[in-house]
């Protein structure tokens, strides 16, 4: 079963892509690591970012976590709050 997830963008990732969310096709059993590979392939501009983490439903996710189309997914570039 193929579907599409929306990936929220913030900070530099939004500026580099010119978008505030990306539509990324995922297959069943797509993992966080696979999503990151796909995002980097589709948006080579993101290579300049020092590190990219993924949040799933508002929590930092490990690379082997499996994604579903119901998840709220976000790319987290290096934070600079405080």
């Amino acid at each position, binding site marked *: 079963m193929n579907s599409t997830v929306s990936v*929220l963008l*913030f*900070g*530099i990732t939004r*500026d580099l892509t010119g978008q505030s969310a990306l539509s990324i096709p995922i297959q069943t059993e797509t993992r966080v690591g696979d999503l990151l590979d796909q995002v980097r392939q589709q948006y080579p501009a993101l290579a*300049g*970012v*020092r590190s990219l983490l993924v*949040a799933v439903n*508002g*929590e*930092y996710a490990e690379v082997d976590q499996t994604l579903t189309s119901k998840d709220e997914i*976000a790319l*987290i*570039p*290096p*934070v*600079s*709050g*405080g």
Partner: protein
Amino acid sequence: MIALTTDPIDVASALKYLQSSQAGAIDLFLGVVRDNTQDRPVDRLEYEAYDRMAISEMQKIADEAHQRWSILRYTIIHRKGTLLTGEIAVLIGITTAHRADAFEACRYIIDTIKQTVPIWKKEIFTDGEVWVNAHP
């Protein structure tokens, strides 16, 4: 009490909130917007947050501090939106019976906020802008 706000941070109401009948010490930390740059003066800063996650990550940090130290009251307030240099970007207030707990919890919270909370800061110059920390 945890807040993410576009309004200027009100130190006086934070202090009022931090009062406790058993208070022996209050440590209040203010993170102030500073002009980091050497040659190019910063015009303003833009703080952006992944709101839902920023709040839950700040809550996790506060919960962890509660586990580690004996805290009577606490408040963490982070600003977002446009800030000028000199403005308060973050306030952390900790009320304890004993001062060591207040200092240690306060420092733990600000150090951890800077590592994990999804908030991003862009420095805006007259001739360009830079997301802080993003590049190698």
